[in-house]
């Protein structure tokens, strides 16, 4: 993380800078930004917006999250700050989800089919992976399922093999958000699921 590049403002007048830093109450500015953000915001983008180093933003975010959680005797808010999909975002605290449901026009997307879920799992663990390779693991035609997953924004086309012309797929950030995780590293390890006899299989994570 290049913390120093996250300081985008002009480097000139030290005194004025110090003054403006004193004026910017970082946690308050962050909560203001989080009120208008419509996607999870990474620390770097927040640092750029507020004009302070990433480290300061990280610290302020931690303070804010604890503040909303009522740590230290404060009020435990009806909302919380969650890190999801590699960024921070204001969420309703789970115990209020039911009350809130009616207020949000959520078009709950239809559930994924079993075939789509399994294909998604294969892509998540084997990415980037071509359709052919998915098909050979699933042993079925995966064309329409891949299209569904693309349409849902859960996977993206990572690159096209210049030799074979095969498109390779990877998971998209939206998948992380929808799973409530921050990185693909948080997926459960698959090797215990494979038991013995799976030796022939490399890189199962």
């Amino acid at each position, binding site marked *: 993380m290049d913390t120093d590049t996250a300081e985008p403002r002009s480097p000139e007048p030290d005194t004025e800078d110090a003054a403006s830093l004193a004026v910017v109450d970082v946690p308050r500015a962050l909560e203001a930004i*989080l*009120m*208008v*953000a*419509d*996607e999870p915001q990474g620390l770097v983008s927040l640092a750029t917006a507020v004009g302070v180093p990433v480290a300061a933003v990280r610290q302020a975010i931690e303070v804010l999250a604890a503040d909303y959680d009522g740590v230290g005797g404060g009020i435990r808010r009806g*909302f919380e700050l*969650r890190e999801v999909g590699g960024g921070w*975002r*204001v*969420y*309703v605290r*789970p115990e209020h*989800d039911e009350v*809130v*449901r009616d207020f*949000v026009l*959520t078009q*709950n*997307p239809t*559930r*994924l089919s*079993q*075939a789509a*879920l*399994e294909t*998604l*799992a*294969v892509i*998540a*663990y084997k990415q980037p992976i071509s*359709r052919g390779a998915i098909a050979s*693991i*699933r*042993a*079925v*035609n995966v*064309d329409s399922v*891949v*299209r569904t997953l693309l349409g849902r924004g859960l996977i993206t086309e990572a690159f096209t093999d210049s030799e074979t*012309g095969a*498109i390779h797929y990877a998971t998209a950030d939206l998948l992380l*958000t*929808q*799973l*409530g*995780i921050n990185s693909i590293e948080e*997926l*459960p390890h*698959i090797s215990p*699921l*494979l*038991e013995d*006899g*799976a*030796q*022939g*299989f490399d890189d*199962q994570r």
Partner: protein
Amino acid sequence: MAQSPSGAAVDAVPQEATGFSVSLSNFNGPFDLLLTLIAKHEMDITEVSLSRITDEFISYLRGLDSTEELDQATEFLVVAATLLDLKVAGLLPQGELVDAEDVALLEARDLLFARLLQYRAFKEAAIWFAAGLERESTRHFRSVRLEEKYRKQTPELVWTLTAEDFAALAAVAMTPHEIPVVGLDHLHAPLVSIREQAAHVVALLRGGQPMTFRQLIAGAEVKGVIIARFLAVLELYRGAAIAFEQLEPLGELTLRWTAEHFSEDSLANLGADYGH
């Protein structure tokens, strides 16, 4: 050998077996089916009674209306092939003298087994995905309309497209984002029925006069017809309706009618495994 412990389970199956198609309602792919079958029969895929699964499977295939779901039928072909491999590997005498070919078969079996395990691992991972997606789908995050005052302050849009540019863009955007596939259309067009070809072969041979295969395909110009006719010959041979002679490798193939009882029904069942 392992028939005795699993024997009871297998015997208990017939009731369930009628529900075979029911258990297939949640069919999600050939390996899934394989796993289901193997689990249902409580058997090791290396066990000989695998042939039973194969039979059951093939009878299921027969009942399939293959015209409606070519895709599904293709999947089933993969299953059939895998089952066949498994069966071959499973039938291999174990613990007896082992030659290189046997080892290769055993390795093939291990590979298939490993594939099954891998498939099952992804299947279980999919359960985790489903749970995660389900859990998050009830969560709510702030994503509200931008306040009017900020919206007004967004920079003026720089727009450079003419209506024609825009139309061209639309044409590109709406061109079906076709995922390139290897076309298979040329492989089965026009469709040739093995049964029809068998009927033709039967008509020619039933008279009693032996014929060479060359004579049998005389006049058939379409490659598909020749192939179908050959498959029909194989099928008829399998059904013990004909016999053939070949004096030397790659030499002339002479076919002779040998069936004593051959009815229209026998003909109707020919090639059923192929779905045509």
